[in-house]
């Protein structure tokens, strides 16, 4: 164990961990939203993210940008970022709705047992990621360097770059807007109603089918934003990127209390930080093991996650 290393690098590990955690948290929202309403682990959510991560690359490709392009001017960077975000959000949203339509809705109509949903989700995930794998020949795809990382400020050996700030701010902003939407808007009330009690919500005139679609869509939107940020941060995407990060995001969602929006944020950030610290302390190969150990320990003490579940009580 390398304590001195951890202490020496604590600052930089914290900021990179927060950036990674912010991405995980946004990704985790999709799991949490769907779980909150349907009590369903949406395994295919990882592929919602995956397609988003390709969508923005394709759009940037239209403008002739690849990993070797020079960084464009600031104005066009803003334009490109927005376009990429829109593309990723749209594709991720469509994918999420598509998965709901093809894999879940028919089962709901047939009143299938809960496990059946899990398995169609696995089938959908396999189908999408493998199709992408074949189409890309399982190769990596590089991301254009839209944002050249530059130090915005430095504290000790902690260099905080513009990209990290962008990721964290964008993630927090998206979360804040989502939280407001769920807690304040009429549609959000519908979501909370269905999450708390589907039967009485239906009696009160809430259209359950619409709420479910909405929840998938919202999860897709968040995954789209996460995907763009992931591309910018990691610089590469690949057919199994979704699966890999999906497991982490799901872990984060459970850690914070699945079905709880703020839990997802907390879980994501915590996981990002912990992975970095653990990698520094024990070696990078233990990074994922550390997150699972933390999960198990926390669930043993708090069986429903740090903040408890229930989308209905998202404010709690």
């Amino acid at each position: 164990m390398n304590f001195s290393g951890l202490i020496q690098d604590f600052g930089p590990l914290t900021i990179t961990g927060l950036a990674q955690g912010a991405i995980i948290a946004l990704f985790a929202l999709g799991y949490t939203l769907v779980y909150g309403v349907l009590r369903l682990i949406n395994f295919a959510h990882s592929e919602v993210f995956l397609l988003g991560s390709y969508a923005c690359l394709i759009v940037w490709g239209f403008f002739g940008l690849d990993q070797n392009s020079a960084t464009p001017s600031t104005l066009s960077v803003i334009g490109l970022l927005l376009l990429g975000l829109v593309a990723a959000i749209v594709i991720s949203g469509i994918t999420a709705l598509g998965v709901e339509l093809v894999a879940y809705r028919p089962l709901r109509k047939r009143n299938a047992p809960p496990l059946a949903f899990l398995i169609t989700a696995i089938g959908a995930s396999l189908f999408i990621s493998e199709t992408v794998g074949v189409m890309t020949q399982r190769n990596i795809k590089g991301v254009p360097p839209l944002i050249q990382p530059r130090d915005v400020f430095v504290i000790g050996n902690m260099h905080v770059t513009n990209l990290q700030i962008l990721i964290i701010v964008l993630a927090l902003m998206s979360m804040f807007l989502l939280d407001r939407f769920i807690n304040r808007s009429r549609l959000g009330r519908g979501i909370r109603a269905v999450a708390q009690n589907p039967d009485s919500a239906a009696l009160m005139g809430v259209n359950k089918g619409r709420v479910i679609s909405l929840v998938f869509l919202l999860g897709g939107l968040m995954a789209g934003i996460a995907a763009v940020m992931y591309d910018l941060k990691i610089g590469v995407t690949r057919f199994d990127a979704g699966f890999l990060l999906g497991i982490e995001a799901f872990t984060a969602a459970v850690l914070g209390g699945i079905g709880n929006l703020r839990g997802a944020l907390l879980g994501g950030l915590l996981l990002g930080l912990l992975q970095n610290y653990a990698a520094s302390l024990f070696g990078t190969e233990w990074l994922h093991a550390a997150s699972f150990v933390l999960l198990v320990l926390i669930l043993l003490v708090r069986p429903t996650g740090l903040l408890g579940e229930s989308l209905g009580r998202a404010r709690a």
Partner: protein
Amino acid sequence: MRQVLARAIGGLAVIGLIAGAAACNSDSGSDDTASGNCGYKLAFFGALTGSSANLGVNIEQGFELAINQYNEKKGSTCIEVAKFDSQGEPGVAPGVARNLVADKKILGIVGPPFSGESEAADPIFEAAGIPTVTPSATRVSLSANGWKTFHRAVANDDAQGPAAGNYIKNVMKAEKVFVANDQSAYGAGLSEVVEKTLGSAVVAKDKTEADGKQTDFSALVQKVVSSQATVLFYGGYYQNAGLIRKALTTAGWKGTLVGGDGMKDPGLAKAAGNAAAVGTITTCPCSPPEKAGGTFVTDYKAKWNVDAGTYSDVAFDAANMFLQGIDAGNTTPEKLNTYLSTVEYKGIANTYKFTDKGELDPNYIKVWTFKFDATGNTIADQEVPTA
């Protein structure tokens, strides 16, 4: 009762559907008589799908290119290409290997690319007596099993490691080196030898997960930066290496990334971006293809529309070595195996001659270093001593 039947039929129908879709199979054994040493097959055995498919595909394409060129020269489909997908997994390999040996037209095998699947599949090839030439399985112990059909067309980790270490020490004159690996049999083996060669110059170490299992290397990068090392040696493959190189550049690290032949692939530059990849050094127990004067590099690009990757050239050589043997009338696996034990074949990446254990003759082991240039390609740098 009727309901039960209906249900059973429903279930069967689904299965039937699958079987029906699968009914049309590709195995239409052509029965043209073997004339002019034709009508045989050479097999590629390795990963074509799965998470490590990219390396397998590199090799398969080099292999297939050689056979296509041969057939074009002959004007007919003289030697058929047979592909066997092991997914690179030791768990899958034996079944696929047994299927391979059932095809009596197969005279020789290029593969398996990875050491793990070699351990699982080579005993089956050995039992069937079909010669194998692996272009990339570099685990030292593979040749110690007493397999007569095993041939390795590259230097094993024991040769490449010291060369990489020597280069870092003597040519780059680095005093602080960070050594990391991806825990693959290849990467871990290589980095251990490098570590030994470098001795006290190693300031810190780390391990990562394998390709496709990790994408965020922030912690590793931070360690490298903090260690003030000027060289990072990474034992692993090009995908992770590319991601690490990119993250290192982002973090403002000015040192050089050095790796083994697993990193000698344009994919590294694709992941990192050419600007970041420039100057990255890879060692390779092979000679630069342009030295061979052939048109391999352009042919490959023309055929597959991608740049030749790691080991594509060695696979190309291995296939040609087999083809030369078949041309000379060695049309049984046994004869071809005997041929391999005596041949001295000059290919584009190297000259090949095998010891009785199937290792490359020490006299022909060459290790070169290559450097990534600004276009993302690897350019031969210099030959380095292996001891």
